[in-house]
């Protein structure tokens, strides 16, 4: 039984490591900031979850360690979308625009006009 749990935990750790490296490589292969954000969020979500799950299987009866691992996982999963959203919105306000592909709908192309340089900073601050 313990061999099974060990094997499972090692598999999860290795898979998590592989996904973290994939996220890192994605941060170099993707062309612009907004697509890189997705590569980074791969590490945040599945990579972190797999590594921490792998560690949880190794706690060996120390429940305090288990609780802390669960807390770390929860913090990462809760803060990651908030951070990504704040980052994307800040980049849009700073005037950065995503490179859009061929499938872009014409009727949605004006969506991003409300951000950034056309707005004066005062009106933005009032809105919040």
């Amino acid at each position, binding site marked *: 039984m313990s061999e099974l749990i060990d094997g499972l935990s090692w598999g999860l750790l290795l898979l998590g490591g592989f996904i973290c490296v994939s996220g890192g490589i994605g941060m170099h292969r*993707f062309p612009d900031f907004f697509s890189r954000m997705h590569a980074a969020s791969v590490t945040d979500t599945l990579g972190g979850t797999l590594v921490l799950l792998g560690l949880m299987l190794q706690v060996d009866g120390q429940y305090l360690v288990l609780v802390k691992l669960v807390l770390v996982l929860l913090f990462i999963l809760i803060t990651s979308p908030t951070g990504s959203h704040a980052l994307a919105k800040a980049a849009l306000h700073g005037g950065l625009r995503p490179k859009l592909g061929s499938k872009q709908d014409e009727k949605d192309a004006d969506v991003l006009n409300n951000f950034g340089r056309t707005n004066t900073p005062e009106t933005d601050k009032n809105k919040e």
Partner: protein
Amino acid sequence: MKKNNSFRYIISLVIVLSLIWIGNSGYFNGLLLSLGAVSVAFVVFMAYRLDIVDEESQPLQVSRRIIVYWLWLLKNLIQSNVNVVKRIWQGPKSIDPVVARIPTSQKTEMGQTIYANSITLTPGTTTLDIEGDTLIVYALSYDGIQYLLGGEMDRRVKRLEE
């Protein structure tokens, strides 16, 4: 400053903070437990002064179906992660970014927040902004937008608050 009906939120905050203290310390002798009680009382007092002890910080109205929703979201998360990792190894030609408006049927701010955060948490789609009833979503490819327009996630989030 409305502070009515905040009693159950304070109780819930005390329980959550005590669990975090006990989970992190692991000692049950008198000194550390009383230090914990003082810390919890101080934090609750500060939160009360800041007027943040409400249904926003303690979403008690969200039903127990959140557990089922989390499991479903986890399954979704794994699928979209595999999708994005595949695109990373296939190289930059495999992505085709799209920005689109996604209509939501969420009535409350909490529902909108849960929905928007779920969209952002799954790799491949990111919520950029909320305009009234529509979310502005950036996706790595049109598949993600198509999936969101299907509305399954929207329905599931909406059911959480019934």
